[in-house]
């Protein structure tokens, strides 16, 4: 007779709600007529917002369940809120996008919900096995979603590239986990930390394990030199999926990175700190410099996302309470800015045709003044201009770096943001100072238009509100510390 240990289902309620919603969406897909598929989006939104409301009830609690495999703390909850927000905005974007391109299928929302589950599992993982499974649950739906626009060639290429390289990266990650297990005798994050504090570990095996783990996770958050897949996949995947990947995957990857580096292997910080700092410098620089040469807006945003991964790595390197909270705060801001920018790309399209070249945005300010103004806000925020959120986010990261004695890293990050102004401003120049080419593009019509407007509204509100009144959100981020019980 086995005695099953007590399981606190209330603690994992947000995760269960998202999972059940995914199942319900798939079942409803079977019975709903083809022209009523918008209901699946409403259903997904209902589940996601429900999970968010349940999550707020758990705020402030610190506990673990499933024999320490699931950790509940404000850190995990804060990231869960970010993932759920990203998913809500993605669903809002997707209705217009999928109906314009004839991609309306119920599995789309189910796969998004599964991926969100994977992210939530990653952010609350207390064990390396769970970390790995969470990453797989996130990645598998994304491989499929990248190829959702099949038989479009770009989409298939993106899916195949992402799948092959992702499987490869998972191998690295797993190998790293095995080596860390071999060195410390445990896969539990807190137990690893206590073994390392006692110094009873095999150092060579441990360092090799950490290095391989960094390669695997570096791939997921597209850190240079593991970033080569990013532009191709972000360009080829359906734009709504790209938006989800840019904002969601990065937040989930950094959640795991923060938890592993700042809890499990914190006792050997001196060893991994130089590696993280160098990765941050290389990632920021390569991302920003390569972005300048891009002519395609999705590729430009892909390189910009690589550069932003570098800024967040600066926060990881800073570590401590300041580093953690500034990373969380930045991930939230980053999600709003990028989802917003991709939402504009979707909103500026005509039927199934998108404005993909930056040249296509010439004269947008004359044809669609509101849309152009919104895009300008996101570009300014990405570049880090006040009074947008991007400025506050970067400021908190640089402050954290300076406080923790990494002034040189902060200086390089500031120089990099100066470089980045060039390519963000280029979009604004095209929109406002160039004559439009060809005939004007009509606005998107259809049942998803209102939802797209709502998504844009949320992103603009997020970017401006967090920029002008950052204090409440930042204070929440400051209490979102890691559970180190």
């Amino acid at each position: 007779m086995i005695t099953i240990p007590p399981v606190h289902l209330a603690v994992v309620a947000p995760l269960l709600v998202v999972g059940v919603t995914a199942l319900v969406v798939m079942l409803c897909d079977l019975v709903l007529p083809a022209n009523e598929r918008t209901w699946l989006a409403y259903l997904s939104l209902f589940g996601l917002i429900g999970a968010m409301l349940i999550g707020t009830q758990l705020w402030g609690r610190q506990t673990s369940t499933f024999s320490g495999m699931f950790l509940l703390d404000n850190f995990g909850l804060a990231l869960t809120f970010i993932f759920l927000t990203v998913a809500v905005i993605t669903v809002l974007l997707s209705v217009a996008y999928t109906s314009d391109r004839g991609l309306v299928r119920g599995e789309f929302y189910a796969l998004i919900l599964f991926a969100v589950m994977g992210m939530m599992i990653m952010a609350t993982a207390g064990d390396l096995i769970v970390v790995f499974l969470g990453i797989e649950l996130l990645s598998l739906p994304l491989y499929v979603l990248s190829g959702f626009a099949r038989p479009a060639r770009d989409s298939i290429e993106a899916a195949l590239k992402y799948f092959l390289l992702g499987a490869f990266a998972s191998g690295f990650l797993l190998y790293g986990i095995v080596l860390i297990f071999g060195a410390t005798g445990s896969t539990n994050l807190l137990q690893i930390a206590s073994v390392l504090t006692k110094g009873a570990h095999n150092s060579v095996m441990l360092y090799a394990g950490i290095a391989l783990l960094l390669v695997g996770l570096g791939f997921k958050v597209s850190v240079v030199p593991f970033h080569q897949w990013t532009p191709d996949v972000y360009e080829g995947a359906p734009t709504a999926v790209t938006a989800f990947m840019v904002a969601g995957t990065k937040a989930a990857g950094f959640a795991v990175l923060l938890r592993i580096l700042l809890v499990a292997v914190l006792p050997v910080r001196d060893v991994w700190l130089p590696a993280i700092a160098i990765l941050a410098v290389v990632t920021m620089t390569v991302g920003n410099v390569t972005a300048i040469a891009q002519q395609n807006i999705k590729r430009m945003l892909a390189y910009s996302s690589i550069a932003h991964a570098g800024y967040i790595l600066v926060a990881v390197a800073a570590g401590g309470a300041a580093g953690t909270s500034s990373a969380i705060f930045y991930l939230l801001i980053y999600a709003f800015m990028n989802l917003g920018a991709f939402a504009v790309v979707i909103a500026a399209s005509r039927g199934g045709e998108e404005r993909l070249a930056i040249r296509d945005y010439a004269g947008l300010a004359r044809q669609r003044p509101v849309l152009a103004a919104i895009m300008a806000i996101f570009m300014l925020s990405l570049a880090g201009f006040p009074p947008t959120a991007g400025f506050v986010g970067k400021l908190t990261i640089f402050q954290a770096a300076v406080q923790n004695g990494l002034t040189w890293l902060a200086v390089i990050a500031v120089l990099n943001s100066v470089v980045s102004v060039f390519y963000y401003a280029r979009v604004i120049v095209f929109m406002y100072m160039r004559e439009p080419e060809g005939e004007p593009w009509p606005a998107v019509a259809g049942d998803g238009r209102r939802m797209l407007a709502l998504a844009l509204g949320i992103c603009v509100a997020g970017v401006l509100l967090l920029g002008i009144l950052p204090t409440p959100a930042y204070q929440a981020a400051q209490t979102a510390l890691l559970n180190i019980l």
Partner: protein
Amino acid sequence: MDLIFFYILAILAVLSALGMVTARNAVHGVLFMVANFALVAVLYLLLDAPFIAMVQIAVYAGAIIVLFLFVVMLIGPVPTSLRDKLPGQRPLGLLAGLVLLLLIGSVVAVATVTAGGGISSGVASGFGSPQAIGELLFTRYLYPFEITSVILLAAMVGAVVLGKKGQ
């Protein structure tokens, strides 16, 4: 008694592996592979590892072989050419095989010398038994076990999405 069994099984396993590599017909190759997997599974049983033996049968001899047979059937009986697609594959393969042989051989040799011929296992009886693994899956590893089920579902949905023709 065990030793005689072992030698018979080992010789058959090596022969079936050779048969798989040398078979001209792809279907014959796959059938040799099934035989090899089954023989190795019996070897696991001899080693007191019934769970791994069953997994070997269910996953390898079952699922993976079915997959192989499907692929062979889909692409049809293609005559195998002896020309290499990748240049230098053969010498590299030979080298890798030799390294693996040396590695396994050295481990066996060291174990035989240090344990004085009889290798004693340092694990408690019942270690790795189906009961022990089942118990762990439903207690300590309940959460990863449940996540895995969701992953399999997501993968299945994904496969259907990618496999379905058009709208």
